[in-house]
């Protein structure tokens, strides 16, 4: 499963599809906009349902990227790590609910995929991660803390899967459990994972 280009034709074409424009994601301490989107063809899911627990929102361009694994498959493997730390993981793209259902079944995904379908890309726009030229969202991550505020956001180049979520989510945990923590996160900071309770 590649994180960057290989010699394969379909993946090269996939990378070339998307413009290099970047958008600014909502910064930390912003109130995370609530939303209600389809999680299955006949069910809806709202961000506010998760108030009281942290949520990792993973925006991604599209289902069915031409690789044997991808950003959603990667997070699917890591799901237990997120759940062990009390967080929920949600994927969002502009694909419709039926597309998501087929994709989730094919990749055996065990977390919700939300359809930012109508109005198209509305939620991605509100989070500052919509690619207007391409009509899809960026590969972007948001850690929303239990109070509904953005704790951390990150936009990855579209050809590179963000592997960072666990690292920064752990940092969120450190800051929440350490009442004296006054540090602001800087890009090169490394969380001290030994402070995290757990195996």
């Amino acid at each position, binding site marked *: *499963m*590649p*994180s960057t280009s*290989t010699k394969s034709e379909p993946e090269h074409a996939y990378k070339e599809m998307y413009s290099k424009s970047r958008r600014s994601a909502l910064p930390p301490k912003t109130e995370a906009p609530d939303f209600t989107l389809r999680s299955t063809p006949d069910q809806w899911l709202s961000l506010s349902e998760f108030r009281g627990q942290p949520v990792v929102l993973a925006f991604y361009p599209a289902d069915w990227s031409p690789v044997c*694994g991808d950003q959603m498959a990667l997070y699917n*493997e890591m799901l237990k*790590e997120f759940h062990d730390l009390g967080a929920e993981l949600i994927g969002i793209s502009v694909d419709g609910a039926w597309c998501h259902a087929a994709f989730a079944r094919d*990749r055996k995904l065990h977390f919700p995929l939300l359809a930012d379908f109508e109005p198209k890309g509305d939620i991605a726009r509100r989070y500052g991660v919509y690619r207007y030229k391409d009509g899809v969202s960026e590969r972007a991550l948001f850690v929303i803390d239990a109070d509904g505020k953005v704790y951390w956001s990150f936009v990855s180049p579209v050809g590179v899967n963000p592997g960072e979520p666990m690292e920064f989510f752990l940092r969120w945990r450190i800051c929440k459990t350490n009442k004296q923590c006054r540090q602001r996160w800087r890009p090169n900071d*490394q969380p001290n*994972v030994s402070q995290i309770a757990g195996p």
Partner: protein
Amino acid sequence: MISRMYLKLPDPERDHFQGTIDAPIALLEYGDYECPFCGEVQPIVKEIQRRLGDDLCFAFRHFPLTNVHPHAEHAAEAAEAAAEQSSFWAMHETLFANQDALDDEALAEYAAALGLSEVRLIQEVISGAHAKRIQEDFRSGVRAGVNGTPCFFINGQRYDGERALEPLLAALSYPATIT
């Protein structure tokens, strides 16, 4: 459990590595034996090792994508079981050379072909004797920021460039300082 210091660098106490641990350039790979992209990069890694010689320490950790690669977990455990019989790297190469045949029966055949005790190897795989080790590797990868397979860390920094010989050699020739 891999300490924070060694999430992105070879751990001399626990990792499988080739070359000397204090070589100037450390290349750490997180990989999946059933991932075709990991298979494709193997000859490139070998060539890098040939060219850099004693300047390179290469280490491998397991990052099986079990939901999309059903045999990856057992293949990783077979490699660890082979390690118990002092044959990690031989099994590692065999697995990558036979990515389309990684079922348990095939794993036993590979053990036999390598002169190992196939009964012992398969028993260990089936009983999950090495599952904890694989999980430790995987968790360290998650914390390190592995974003796909194969995932390379050069002197502790994740490599996001093209997985071809020349770009990798270029990155290895100008390694970032260990952070």
